[in-house]
């Protein structure tokens, strides 16, 4: 057990005489605030000071960070989130198209796009965008569709978009990973769609697609658009953290 480990969390009673030990319990708990790391280090271990030991917390004003002592060194409490939302969930209602610009930056290499959708009549499609303009050439897709016991594969090249799926009468969901869209190299996408076409039982299909936009173009956004009519649903985009 470390020097500062507690074996109880006491409650004092009215009229009780508090000893120095009792008072130290209060004085040594909580997160002490220091101007900086130098002040922090000077505050432990001296005469009349608390012994620095594993489990000690500290807050540093100069960096606005909370740290803990692991027995050998001070460590940051906050950890980097693995996924960072770069486009808040956006509702789309009976629109032919939805655009999201200025999303892909050098802050992230890979992105996650989640889409829930129904279509009024036809396919929901996706195009990549640069500077507010959708690119309508150079899309290639290999797809695998599983419909009950029937498995179908197909590949299409040099298309004007990537088709996600048609979802009329029931809502479907797509998980789309987008790799390196912000770099001037071919952009790759992988897509899994839980497709409910017309209903949630016999309309259930699994649709997987490997796609790319083969030009050496840096993209900063996407467009989700209905092939015919409109689509309704929502989408959100996340960046995958590049650091731990």
């Amino acid at each position: 057990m470390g020097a500062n480990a507690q074996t109880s969390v006491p409650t004092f009673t009215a009229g009780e005489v508090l000893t120095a030990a009792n008072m130290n319990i209060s004085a040594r708990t909580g997160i002490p605030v220091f101007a900086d790391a130098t002040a922090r280090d000077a505050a432990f271990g001296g005469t009349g000071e608390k012994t620095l030991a594993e489990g000690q917390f500290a807050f540093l004003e100069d960096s606005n960070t909370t740290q803990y002592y692991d027995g050998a060194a001070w460590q940051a409490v906050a950890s980097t989130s693995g996924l960072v939302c770069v486009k808040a969930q956006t509702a789309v209602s009976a629109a032919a198209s939805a655009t999201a610009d200025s999303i892909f930056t050098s802050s992230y290499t890979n992105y996650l796009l989640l889409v829930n959708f129904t279509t009024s009549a036809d396919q929901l499609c996706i195009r990549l965008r640069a500077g507010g303009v959708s690119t309508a050439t150079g899309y290639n897709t290999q797809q695998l569709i599983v419909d009950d016991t029937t498995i179908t594969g197909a590949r299409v090249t040099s298309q004007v978009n990537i088709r996600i799926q048609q979802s009329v009468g029931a809502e479907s969901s797509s998980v789309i990973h987008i790799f390196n869209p912000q770099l001037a190299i071919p952009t790759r996408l992988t897509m899994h769609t839980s497709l409910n076409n017309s209903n949630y039982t016999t309309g259930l299909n699994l649709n997987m697609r490997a796609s790319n936009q083969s030009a050496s173009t840096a993209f900063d956004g996407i467009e989700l658009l209905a092939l015919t009519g409109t689509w309704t649903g929502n989408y959100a985009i996340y960046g995958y953290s590049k650091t731990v």
Partner: protein
Amino acid sequence: MALKINDNGTDREMTADEAAEYKAWQIVAKAETQAEADAIEAKAEAKASALAKLGLTADEAAALFG
């Protein structure tokens, strides 16, 4: 009827230029979609024809060939 776009979270009608680009895209995209569907259907028909010549059902063929 005006085409509606959700522009970075804001609903509005497409501009004339946007609508023209969207409609031009639709024509090509629909043709590509139909071509893909036709190709898949043609493959399915070829498979069914081959199975018929062998006298097998699709389930029997799957049991034999995986």
